[in-house]
Each structure stands twice: as structure tokens, then as C-alpha cells.
């Protein structure tokens, strides 16, 4: 490659990755406000995190919510995917389109629509309301991933087990389930991430007493930016990387991307 093109690519990569690099560096600061480079380097921002009650309660809500959403969508999403792949229910094509349609909608519109209906049902600012809202975002990913996985299991293997006398439930538990376990793990990680990172829909359905971590950060940085947010960002990035590694080890995400 010619030097000019090479320089351009390096500069563009710098632009793409600079925010992540600077946020990590700016978290090691003892300053009271955000400044880069920090006037005093140190770990005070991370210490401040441990004393920030808003962030901590937000983290608790986000973890509990993410756990529930993951369990719910994995259960009903896998059931739906199995029905789509292995049974002859009518309208399978349109049902799949229906399950993945929310991905084609602006989240700001989904959020407003949920606000309007939840206001009538008294679900605003409640945990069930949040679970419903986040499941809407997570379910399309779970259905898609599990459908691909279940279709990848040869029907002949299941049929062999059934011929040898295994009842349908046993076939699923002893044959299908072990074969789709990697996909289940990946779907769980994706569903959790979808819930854990969700901001826009959440803004519409939360209440004053029940707030998730991304919303806490959103409101916090609207008024001030200090190294604590950088430290929190680093923690969240680390959690994300951890989940990606989980997904990668089970489905080969990196191989898919780099191919």
C-alpha cells in the first residue's frame, strides 16, 4: 500500500478507537472534574464508584432485570424457535417476521408506544413493565439465534432417538439440548447485553424509584462529566468484553467477523 493510503488508514483507526483509549486513560484520575490528561493520576475515581449510591442501586436493578429478561426470553424464545423449526404450525414465515420486526423499528418509537400502553395498564415505573420492555428488545435476537441452531441439528438424529423409544421430551432433553447448548449460551449473553445496555426504551418506562445503570449514567452526564463516569465506563467495557468472550467461545463470533 502506498504511504499516503497507509497514513489515512492509521488516522481513521485512531479516530475509531480514540474514544475508548481516552476514556480508559481518563479514568485513572484524582481530579474532581473531567480533564484530559488528568492533573493528578490515581485511583480515586474507582474509589468514588464504590461510594456512589445512585450507580450502585442502578447496577443492582440492571443486573436483576438483565437476569430475569435473559431467563424469560431464553425460555419463550427457544420454545418459539423450536416450534418454527420442527413443527408445521401455519404461517411460520410471517410469525418469524413478526418476532424480528422490532429490530426494524426505531427504538424511540417503540419506547413511546410502550409508554402510551403502559400508562393505561399501570406498568410504568414497575419491574414487570421494565421486563416487558427489555424482553421486546432481547427476544428477536434469541429467536433468530436459536432458530439457526435448531435447524442445524439434523432431524435424523432426533428421529433415531425417537425410533429407539425415547418420548419427545426425552429426545429434546437428551439429544437436541446438548447439541444447541453453545447457541443457548450465546443467546443468553446477547439477551443479557441487550437488556443491560438498553437506554432509549428504558427512558420511557422507568419511574423515579426504579432506574437502571445506563439511565443513571445518562442523567449524570447530562449535568456533569467527571472521572467517575470514566471509571464506570471502563468497568462496563470490561463486562462487555467478558460476555463477548463467552459468546465467542460458544459460537466463534470472532471467526465470523474476521472472515
Amino acid at each position, binding site marked *: 500500500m502506498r504511504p499516503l493510503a497507509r497514513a489515512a488508514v492509521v488516522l481513521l483507526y485512531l479516530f475509531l478507537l480514540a474514544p475508548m483509549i*481516552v476514556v480508559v486513560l481518563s479514568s485513572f484520575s484524582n481530579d474532581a472534574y473531567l*480533564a*484530559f490528561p488528568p492533573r493528578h493520576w490515581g485511583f480515586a475515581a474507582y474509589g468514588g464508584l464504590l461510594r456512589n449510591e445512585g450507580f450502585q442501586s442502578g447496577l443492582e436493578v440492571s443486573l436483576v432485570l438483565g437476569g430475569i429478561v435473559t431467563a424469560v426470553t431464553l425460555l*419463550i424464545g427457544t420454545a418459539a424457535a423450536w416450534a418454527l423449526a420442527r*413443527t408445521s404450525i401455519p404461517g411460520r414465515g410471517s410469525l418469524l417476521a413478526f418476532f424480528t420486526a422490532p429490530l426494524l423499528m426505531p427504538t424511540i418509537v417503540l419506547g*413511546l*408506544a410502550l409508554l402510551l400502553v403502559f400508562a393505561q395498564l399501570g406498568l410504568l415505573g414497575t419491574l414487570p413493565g421494565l421486563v416487558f420492555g427489555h424482553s421486546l428488545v432481547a427476544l428477536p435476537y434469541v429467536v433468530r439465534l436459536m432458530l439457526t441452531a435448531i435447524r442445524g441439528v439434523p432431524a435424523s438424529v432426533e428421529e433415531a432417538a425417537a425410533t429407539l423409544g425415547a418420548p419427545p421430551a426425552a429426545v429434546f432433553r437428551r439429544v437436541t439440548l446438548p447439541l444447541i447448548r453453545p447457541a443457548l449460551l450465546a443467546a443468553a449473553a446477547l439477551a443479557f447485553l441487550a437488556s443491560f445496555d438498553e437506554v432509549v426504551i428504558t427512558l420511557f418506562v422507568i419511574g423515579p424509584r426504579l432506574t437502571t445503570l445506563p439511565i443513571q449514567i445518562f442523567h449524570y452526564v447530562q449535568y456533569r*462529566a467527571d472521572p467517575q463516569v470514566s471509571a464506570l465506563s471502563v468497568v462496563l467495557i470490561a463486562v462487555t468484553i467478558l460476555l463477548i468472550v463467552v459468546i465467542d467461545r460458544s459460537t466463534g463470533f470472532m471467526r465470523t467477523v474476521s472472515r
Partner: protein
Amino acid sequence: MRRWTGAVLATPATALMVLTFLLPMLWLARLSLDRSEDGGVLVPALSAGEYGQFLGDPFYQRILLRTFELGVTVTALTLVASYAIALFLFRTRSRWRAVLAVLTVSPMLISSVVRTYSWMTILDDHGLVNQALIWLGLVHRPIALMDNLLGVEIGLVQIEMPVMILALMAGFARLDPTLEEAARCLGAAPWRAFLRVTIPLSAPGIVLGCLVTFVQVMSSFVTPSLLGGGRVYVMATTIYQEALETLNWPLAAAISIILVVVFGACLAAYERFARRWAA
């Protein structure tokens, strides 16, 4: 029997989607035809009044136009910035290729709030760029890089780049390097081979990437809210304000429907392009 098992198994997911997607969207469409009177009083009606207000009032017209301009500007800048990286990733034989590919898409996997915040550490008055400019003596006072449209554009371009790069790489898959070589052998200058061979052949990826970027920017909320410092009004921030601050739900619903129509139009346009290339 399998028919029944299937129906039973698909029911919970279908019910969830009806409750959280189908019903709310229908409700939203219906509410957009209601009227809102001063003080947030909701008047059931069947009128296009709120649509008229949004499309007719100069204040809202400016918001619509600004959102559209933001979509076009960011999409164009993202395309230029991404094309070079995508082409490099596609062609390089470096053993770091896999690592670079993962690094390229990695920002996509990080929370939008965190990604937007990370731009504050760079664009803030005390951020990297202003500190560097002052240290170099180029400026005496920090220049405003955020809390304005410029900051929103910078942030959005970087946030949209991974998606655009993925779309472009998918388009390059049908790029046969021998065609470029043929153009060069027949005497075309490198830039000419690039303009006449490489770009047209990667057009499907370009269109896909541009459409995805455009609709995402048109509906973006977090970045305009945070890097705009509450001073940049686009469609998504207006929906939020009308819904939760002014409490004018019919207007918020009408703007949402307009946004959905834009989305639908872009998807339909892409379908047409995709069919033409498939043929």
C-alpha cells in the same frame, strides 16, 4: 399432534410480542389522530391535526430539516471514513488482520451511553483536543466542540462506522481483484480503476451501509441528547420532549409515525435495489 405442540410452544412469545409490540404500535397510530389541547388535555378525535402542526409549523419544519441534514451529512462522512478501512481490511494479508477486524467492530458492542460519554473526554472544554490545541498555542480559549451540532456529528460518525464497515465488507465479498488488475493492464490509472471498477462493484455494500446508517442517525437519541448538550433538537429528542415534558402525546405519536414512514421508505428502496442486483 405436532401442529398443536407447535402452537402451544409459540404462544408465550407471540403473546409477549402482541402485548409489547403490536398493541402499542396500533395504539400509537390511533393516538396520533387525537388532538391535544393546552395543558395536555387529550381530546379523542380522528384528525390529521398533529401531523399538520408538525409539517406546517416552521419550528417543527426546521427540526425535520435538521434531522434530515444530520442523516445525510453523517452518512456521507461515515461512508468516506469507513470505505478506506473496509478496503484495507479486505485486502490486507497482515497476520494482524483478525485482531484488526475485531478491533474495528468492538466499539459496536459497547453501550451507547458509554460510547457517547467517551467522546466527552475528547471534545469537552478540558478534553483531549482542546488541551492539545492550547498546549500547542493554536488557541487561547477552548473552542466549542460539543453542546452543538458539530459534536453530535463527530460522535455519530464514529458510532456508525463499525456498522458501515461491516456492510461494505459484505459488499466487497463479490469484488474480484482480477477485474481491477484487468483495468490496470488495459492502461487505466489507479484512481480511474478505483472509480470505474472498484466503486461500482461494491455498490450493494455501499447502499446497504448508507441506508442502515441513515435510518439509525435519523432516529438517534442518546448522542444528540448528550453531545448536543440539550441545544440540538432532532426528531427523536422532540418525540421524547413532547411525550415526557410537554405531555403532548398525540404530537409525539404523529412524529413517531412520520419517522416509521421514513424507515419504511428506506427499507422499500433497499428491497428494490437488492432485487435489481440479484437479477
